[in-house]
C-alpha cells in the first residue's frame, strides 16, 4: 500500500487504525467510532497535530439522507418548563436562543405551542375552506394553494406569553426559558389578498375567523385589514415543507402579531362583519390589568430585545475581550436602534446592527465588551422605526400591574458576577 511508509513515520498507530486500513472502504461505521474515541482531552497541553479524525476515512454519503447537527451539539434542543402546564399536549417548548447565531431559527428547534397536541395531517386529504361574506366560497386542496403566485418573507413569530413568568419576579435563570417562545424563519406561501381576490368580498366584510385542523380547532378572529395587508398562507419554512410542529401542511403567518393568531394546520377562513370572541380571545390571550379590567385584541408585538451572550447558560470566562451579542425585534416594523448598558441602565451605548434588517424579523446586534472582571448589569434596549422604545419592567408594572401574563416586552437585566456567572435579576 502506498500509504504504508508514511504510516510508519507516526508513533504507535492504533491497532484499530491498522485494521481499518485493511478493511478499507466498507468500514464507515468503524471509522466513525475511532474518531469519537480518539478525541483530544480538553486539558491536553498539546493537542495532536493530526488527530484520529484526520487519519481515517470518514463515513461516505448516504448514511445521512436527512442531516443532523454534530452529536457534540446535543445540548441544543427545545426544552420545556413542566410546571407551567397541566400536560404536554396543551403546552409550549422553548427555542434554545443561547445557541442561535444570526436571525434564522433552525426549523428543528423552533419553539412549539400546541393547544391539542400536534396533529398528523395528510396533505392529500387536507382542505382549506374560505366562506362567509364572500362572493364565491371556495374549497382548496394543497395543490391549489401551491399553484397560486408565491411570496417568501422572513418574519419572527413570538408567543405573547414569552417572559410571562417574570411579571412579579425573576423566576427562571435561563435565556431559553425567559425569552425562548420566539423563532424567526423564512416563510413561503400565498398572500391572503390573492386568495380573497378569488373569492371576492361582500360589502361590510371586516373580520376573518381563522381555524385550525387540530383537535382544539384553534380559532382566532383577525381584522380583514390585516389579512389584506401582509398575512401569508404558508406551506414552507426555511426552504422546505413546514414541519408538523409548525402547522404542516399549511398555516397562517400574521407578521408581527402574537403567535397564537398565526393559526397552524389551517383548515378554514370565515369572513364576517363582527369578531367571534372565541375562548382564545376572551378567557385566554387577554391581559388582566391591576384594576380588574382586561385588554383584548392586543395583537402586535411591541419592540423587544435581549442579550444572548453572555446569559445564564453562556457565562463569561474571566476578564478579557468579548462580543456582547443579542437579538432585537418589533412587530411594528424594522428595528432602528439597539442600545446596551453595562451598569443597569445608567449609561447606554448604541450597539452595531447587523444586516439584513427586515421588518417584523429578528435583527442581530453586537457590541465589543472589554470586561475587567468587575460586577456588571447588562441590559439591551430596542427602538423601532415608529420611535417606540422598549420599556423597563418597572414602567410596565406601573401601567399594567403584574397579572397581565402577556406582552411583557421589558428590558432584561443580566447580572454578571466577578467569576463570570450570569443571573436573571430585576432592578429596584
Amino acid at each position, binding site marked *: 500500500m502506498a500509504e504504508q511508509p508514511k504510516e510508519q513515520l507516526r508513533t504507535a498507530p492504533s491497532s484499530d487504525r491498522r485494521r481499518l486500513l485493511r478493511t478499507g472502504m466498507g468500514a464507515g461505521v468503524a471509522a466513525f467510532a475511532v474518531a469519537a474515541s480518539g478525541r483530544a482531552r480538553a486539558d491536553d497541553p498539546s493537542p495532536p497535530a493530526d488527530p484520529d479524525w484526520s487519519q481515517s476515512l470518514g463515513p461516505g454519503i448516504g448514511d445521512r439522507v436527512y442531516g443532523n447537527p454534530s452529536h457534540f451539539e446535543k445540548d441544543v434542543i427545545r426544552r420545556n418548563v413542566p410546571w407551567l402546564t397541566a400536560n404536554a399536549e396543551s403546552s409550549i417548548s422553548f427555542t434554545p436562543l443561547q445557541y442561535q447565531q444570526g436571525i434564522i431559527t433552525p426549523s428543528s428547534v423552533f419553539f412549539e405551542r400546541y393547544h391539542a397536541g400536534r396533529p398528523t395531517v395528510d396533505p392529500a386529504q387536507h382542505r382549506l375552506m374560505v366562506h362567509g361574506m364572500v362572493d364565491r366560497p371556495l374549497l382548496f386542496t394543497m395543490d391549489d394553494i401551491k399553484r397560486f403566485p408565491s411570496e417568501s418573507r422572513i418574519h419572527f413569530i413570538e408567543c405573547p406569553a414569552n417572559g410571562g413568568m417574570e411579571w412579579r419576579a425573576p423566576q427562571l435563570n435561563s435565556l431559553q426559558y425567559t425569552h425562548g417562545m420566539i423563532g424567526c424563519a423564512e416563510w413561503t406561501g400565498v398572500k391572503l389578498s390573492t386568495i380573497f381576490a378569488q373569492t371576492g368580498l361582500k360589502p361590510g366584510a371586516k373580520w376573518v375567523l381563522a381555524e385550525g385542523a387540530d383537535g382544539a380547532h384553534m380559532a382566532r378572529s383577525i381584522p380583514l385589514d390585516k389579512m389584506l395587508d401582509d398575512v401569508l398562507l404558508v406551506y414552507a419554512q426555511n426552504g422546505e415543507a413546514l414541519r408538523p410542529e409548525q402547522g404542516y401542511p399549511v398555516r397562517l403567518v400574521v407578521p408581527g402579531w402574537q403567535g397564537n393568531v398565526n393559526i397552524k394546520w389551517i383548515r378554514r377562513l370565515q369572513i364576517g362583519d363582527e369578531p367571534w370572541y372565541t375562548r382564545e380571545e*376572551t378567557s385566554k390571550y387577554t391581559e388582566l390589568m391591576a384594576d380588574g379590567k382586561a385588554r383584548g385584541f392586543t395583537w402586535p408585538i411591541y419592540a423587544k430585545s435581549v442579550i444572548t451572550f453572555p446569559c445564564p447558560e453562556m457565562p463569561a470566562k474571566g476578564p478579557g475581550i468579548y462580543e456582547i451579542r443579542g437579538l432585537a425585534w418589533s412587530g411594528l416594523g424594522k428595528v432602528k436602534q439597539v442600545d446596551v448598558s453595562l451598569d*443597569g441602565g445608567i449609561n447606554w451605548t448604541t450597539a452595531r446592527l447587523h444586516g439584513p434588517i427586515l421588518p417584523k424579523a429578528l435583527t442581530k446586534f453586537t457590541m465589543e465588551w472589554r470586561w475587567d472582571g468587575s460586577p456588571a448589569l447588562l441590559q439591551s434596549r430596542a427602538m423601532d422605526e415608529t420611535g417606540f422604545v422598549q420599556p423597563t419592567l418597572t414602567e410596565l408594572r406601573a401601567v399594567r400591574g403584574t397579572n397581565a401574563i402577556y406582552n411583557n416586552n421589558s428590558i432584561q437585566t443580566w447580572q454578571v458576577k466577578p467569576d463570570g456567572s450570569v443571573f436573571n435579576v430585576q432592578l429596584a
Partner: protein
Amino acid sequence: MSSWRKLAVAAIAAACIPAALGFAADKGPLRLGTTPTAAQVEGWAIAVRPDGQGLPAGSGSVKDGDELYANVCASCHGTFGEGVGRYPRIAGEGKLTGDRPEQTVQTYWPYATTLFDYINRAMPFPSPHVLPPDQVYAVTAYVLNLNSLVDDDFVADRNTLPKVKMPNREGFNWIDPRPDTHDAACMSNCRPAADVKVSQTAEGKTLTPRTTGPLDTAMPQ
C-alpha cells in the same frame, strides 16, 4: 397613530378599489379551488358568535348536563368546576384583582356563547368533537349553572344562550391602548447610581429546569 394602524387604514382604502384586491381582476380568475357544497359548509362552519350566529338546532338542560359533566368533564375540571391539579378552574366566585385573580366563567368570561363554541370545538380534551349538539348544549347549561349564572331549570338553545347575562360582559377593553409607556431613549446619567440595585434574583430558586443534557423529566408537570 402606530404604523400598523396606518397600514391597516391604507389596506381598507385599497380594499374599496376592486382592482387593488389582486392581479385576478386584470387577467381573469385563476379558477383554482372548487365550490363547497352546502353540506360541506354546514359541517365545517362551527364558529358561534355572541349574537347566536352559528349556534345549531337542538337544546340541553342543566339536568341533562349533570351526569354528562360528571362522566366527561369532572376528571379534569373537578366536580364543582374547581379544577384538578393544574387543569383550569372553570367555576366559582372570586376577584379579578390582587395577587391571585380568579378567572372563572362567572368572573371573567364575557359571553355564554363562547362556552358553547369552545366545548364544541375543543372538548373533551382527549377526544374532541364526540358530543352531539344536544350534549354540548347540556354541558354548557350545566357549567353556567355551576357558575350561578342560570337557574336549575335552564335549557340552553340557540335562543337562550345569547341572552344569558354575564357579569364581566363590560370588563374588556377591545381597543389596544398601546403604546402605554414612554418613548424616550436616555443615553447617559439616566438614573442615580445609588438607585440601581438588584431587588430580586432568580439565583438560588429551584424553578429552572435543567439547561444542559437531555430534557429535564424529573421536574413534575
